[in-house]
């Protein structure tokens, strides 16, 4: 098992190198001159040149690349010009915010989507099947920022049930000491239950927004896969042997229907992590998506490169995890390098 994981990781190295080169070149190819941008509106030509020199953008591309990769080898992702902070530190601070939100959103989504999909598959054509169809269609056709804004409008602005969309914690609570970076866990470790409640209530709306969006692929995939499995021979055999419908569905059918669902889950997760930029914007969430987009707007190279690299690493790890999960769920799937 360990050697297989090692092998898989080794295979990821060429793609990571590719990512490094491509993002470096792409960010350099962006229009806009960061030196002119950061020299400010009033800068003279000399001032712009001065700044360019300070930032090292006057050097030939290849030299910049060598410097970038050697910094990278030392774990230094450079410094963001827009926020003025080291990129590695910022990603480290912001990744948990995005991950906490995405994971919770995904959990909410799974809790609703899988039972819905299973029920819809066992009773095709019934009201629950229609409900499944309507929710998934609605979920996939509403843009996330729209759902987010509607939720804020209704639950915060009109009803006043939800807290102000001001990020991860209410303004007057201070963040718990960082252990995992996940506020829900850290507040519990610090035994600060008031802060836990605040963090949790801040999470509800954005997580629900993400859940509504990701409901569709999971529920549809569960339903389709369950339908296929329920029509197969071994289910017929199980039924014919007089097993209870619950046992047939949960133990036999569901487990076999899981594989495509897991694949979808991994896709949905990685997609959400990168694509929740809009949710982060709406809820003033200090995550990595909004960070990367802001950097992109300002032609700020380092954070964009850092972001793409982080995402690439996460994809590699996620895929590995999914492959391992396959083996656990279905013994017929063997990890092979």
């Amino acid at each position, binding site marked *: 098992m360990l050697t297989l994981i090692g092998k898989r990781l080794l295979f990821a190295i060429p793609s990571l190198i590719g990512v490094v080169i491509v993002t470096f070149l792409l960010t350099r190819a*962006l*229009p*806009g*001159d*960061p030196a*002119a*941008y*950061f*020299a*400010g*509106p*009033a*800068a*003279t*030509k000399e*001032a*712009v040149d*001065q*700044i360019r020199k*300070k*930032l090292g953008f006057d050097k030939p591309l290849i030299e910049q690349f060598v410097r970038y990769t050697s910094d990278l080898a030392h774990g230094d992702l450079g410094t*963001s*010009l*827009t*926020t*003025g*902070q080291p990129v590695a530190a*910022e990603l480290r*601070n912001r990744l948990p915010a995005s991950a906490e939100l995405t994971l919770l959103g995904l959990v909410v989504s799974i809790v609703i989507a899988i039972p819905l999909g299973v029920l819809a598959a066992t009773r095709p054509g019934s009201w629950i099947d229609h409900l499944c169809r309507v929710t998934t269609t609605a979920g996939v056709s509403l843009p996330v920022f729209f759902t987010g*804004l*509607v939720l*804020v*409008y209704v639950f*915060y*602005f*009109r009803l*006043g049930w939800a807290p*102000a*969309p*001001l*990020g991860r914690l209410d*303004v*007057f609570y201070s963040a718990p000491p960082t252990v995992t970076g996940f506020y829900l866990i850290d507040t519990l470790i610090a035994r600060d239950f008031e802060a836990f409640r605040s963090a949790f209530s801040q999470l509800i709306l954005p997580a629900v927004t993400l859940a509504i969006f990701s409901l569709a692929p999971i529920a549809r995939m569960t339903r389709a896969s369950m339908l296929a499995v329920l029509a197969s021979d071994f289910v017929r055999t199980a039924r014919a042997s007089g097993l209870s419908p619950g046992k047939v569905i949960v133990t036999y059918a569901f487990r076999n229907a899981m594989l495509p669902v897991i694949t979808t889950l991994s896709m949905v997760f990685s997609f959400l992590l990168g694509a929740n930029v809009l949710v982060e*914007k*709406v*809820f*003033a969430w*200090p995550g990595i998506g*909004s*960070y990367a987009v*802001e950097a992109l*707007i*300002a*032609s700020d190279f380092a954070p964009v490169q850092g972001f793409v690299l982080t995402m690439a690493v996460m994809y590699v790890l996620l895929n590995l995890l999914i492959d391992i999960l396959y083996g656990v769920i279905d013994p017929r799937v063997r990890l092979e390098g």
Partner: protein
Amino acid sequence: MKRRDFLKSVSGLAAGALAPTAPAIWSPAKADARSETLLIVSEGGPNNLDIHGVGTNVPGYEVSWNCYDRLISHEMKSGPGGVPYYDRDKFKPELAEDMKIDDMSVTFKLRKNAKFHDGTPVTAKDVKWSLDRAVSVGGFPTFQMSAGSLTKPEQFVVVDDHTVRVDFLTKDKLTIPDLAVIVPCVVNSELVKKNASEKDPWGLEFTKQQTAGSGAYKVTKWTAGTEVVMERNDDWVSGPLPKIKRVIWRMVPQAGNRRALLERGDADISYELPFKDFQEMKANGKLNVVSLPFSNGIQYIGMNVTKPPFDNPKVRQAMAYAMPYQKIMDAVLFGLANPMFGAAKDKPTEVAWPQPTKYFTDMEKAKALLTEAGYANGFETTISFDLNFAGVNEPLCVLVQESLAQLGIKTTINKVPGANWRTELTKKEMPLFTNVFSGWLDYPEYFFYWCYHGNNSIFNTMSYKSGEMDKLIDGARIAAANGDTAAYDADVKGFVDLAYADIPRIPLYQPFVNVAMQKNISGYEYWFHRRLDYRAMAKG
């Protein structure tokens, strides 16, 4: 000087709705904290806490203004609508308790009891080090200092522990005002030097992350892109102790949410909202909305005078008659701006800036002028704007495009990403564009020096060159330095008249800075930098 604050127009859903008046629920301890805390929400936050840093953005100026002291500052006067407005001509001591202006120098006596946040006393050598730093670090701070003829460290002389003298290189009326802008702030030199390195002799890396000043507030927590927390410096002596104990400044990217937060009473103050929102909030009267004109600022349509067809003054005049002025005022700005067009025909030119032109929308006249210039069938051109301010610029350009189409002028709209805008401006190749210029120092000759002078600074976006214009501008600067009012007035009137006759750029309006706050917030002051001064504010 700088561009106006972000006003990205992302219309939120919150628009047009009345909030139920349910106050937020706070536990008693929190309620206490809340009454002494000012919660500000805005789109962007600082990227650097030190204005001397490389590429410090406009929100960073606000931190510097409140956390550092300058030698002198401005008095307040009553502005439009009774809102306190900084008085360009009256100075008050800040760190200095006395200022004596001589013929070729100015001497400041420092307050003896002033201390930096870490408790070390503020001395003359800190002042010298800070001013040396401002003229030496390069980039924006050095540039701003040079606008007041402050360019060499030798100009700043330590007389004794509590006396500093600034020597003038030339007589310049802008030297004293330039010492009251944000840049010449006084930094704790010993503390910063301890944290400086060979590569970074001015300790810019250190002050980027923390404030090292003697100002009324100090930054206690800063999470870039998320929030800035500032606490009051209870030992502040450069003015009356501020009433607000704590300032929490949160970045909320969504304009609709910022409005919702204000209307729900959760946030105390916000700017950077779409004009439509400001206008609606003004109308429903639940919040206090302050709209004040930018001092020395104009949004204009610029034309590149080096290339046809805009090298022909007739074409430029035709353009000035073809602008849909009133439509822009109504549909883009919702009335929140001062018109800079349509002055009465017989109105004499004033010694003031900005002032309206005598142009107004008259398509017949435009057509006639265009025919005279030999473009009876129009021409093709491109109008460019900065996407960072798309909320205003985009509808504005569409209206201009529509209007020009009536003259047979086919206009393509070119949206330039914010990061690229300055590069494009420096190239000076855009034939037609819209932009804002606003000067920190509120003097006509200052504006004209940057925007119309033949030395062709980046703000002379039209590449306009005229010997007569240069003579008038230089004349006004010299007259101002020598206190020759008659010559000054004649020169100012002269260059305004020339600028409007030659019309290389068409003034459209003087923009407003809009700030919305809760009714219980008082003490808002308008400053030339258009950011908030927490020191005068109070809550409740």
